[in-house]
């Protein structure tokens, strides 16, 4: 069975990506692979070493995002098999690695608070540049215009 890999990189991003990925997976009879990548940012490490509790906190955040994502996928496409991977690493490269054998890769364009124009984050830029499979980038637009095709199927 073919697999559609979806990056879970934030609550809002994940929701948009899962909506697209779940619908495609149901239509194409594929499995869904949800991938959450976490790391402790360099700004927190500050050149030093963080305590175990800091690592645990970041990992737990990724795990709770993943739990939310699994529930959403089950709701949208109950018949689609879902596999989850929570991995530590740099989000772009780690996601590419985890989705190497997928037929389609889905990631949302992050919202950058304070910047009027929505600009593709460095993670999606990395994915677009390095993926060996087709990549779907989902734009996060304002409420009510994020999915023009909603209800059309």
């Amino acid at each position: 069975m073919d697999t559609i890999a979806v990056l879970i990189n934030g609550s809002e991003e994940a929701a948009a990506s899962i909506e697209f990925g779940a619908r495609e997976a149901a239509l194409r009879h594929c499995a869904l692979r949800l991938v959450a990548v976490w790391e402790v940012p360099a700004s927190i490490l500050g050149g030093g070493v963080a305590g175990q509790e800091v690592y645990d906190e970041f990992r737990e955040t990724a795990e709770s995002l993943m739990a939310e994502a699994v529930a959403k996928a089950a709701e949208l496409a109950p018949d689609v098999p879902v596999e989850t991977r929570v991995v530590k690493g740099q989000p772009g490269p780690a996601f590419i690695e985890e989705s190497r054998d997928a037929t389609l890769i889905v990631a949302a364009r992050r919202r950058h608070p304070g910047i009027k124009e929505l600009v593709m984050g460095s993670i999606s830029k990395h994915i677009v540049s390095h993926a060996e499979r087709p990549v779907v980038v989902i734009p996060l637009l304002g409420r009510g215009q994020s999915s023009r095709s909603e209800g059309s199927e």
Partner: protein
Amino acid sequence: MKTILVGVDGSPGADKAVEFAAREAAAHGAVVRLLAAWEVPASVLSGGGVPLELYKNFEAEAQSLLTAAAARVRELEPSVQVEQRTAEGHAGNALVDATADADLVVIGRRGHGGFTELLLGSISHQVADHSKCPVVIVPWEKGRD
């Protein structure tokens, strides 16, 4: 999903995008809208006035790319309805503008330089950055067909 937009420039990357769009349109019962943008390069314009025939040549080139792409869609998915559009202007801008009226846009990652150069190196990033609808970027690497 009703309309799947595809950027067409005759490059191998764009061919892959056309193929992806054809399959996707068949799965969704959607229309494939092929868009070829053309513009007279600044290097030509800098010489001053541009003969009208030159503009016509560029547009004709875009039309012939569309005809070839439409034939490819019909070959792969005969049931899929195809629309052909040309736009004068920068390919990235033309594609981004056209996303306002599409449910999905598909582009190839590599262009071939020359007449429609840019489509799909920097353009894939431009469209991914500014599209109003989800964007599919289809990779193409030489020798890895």
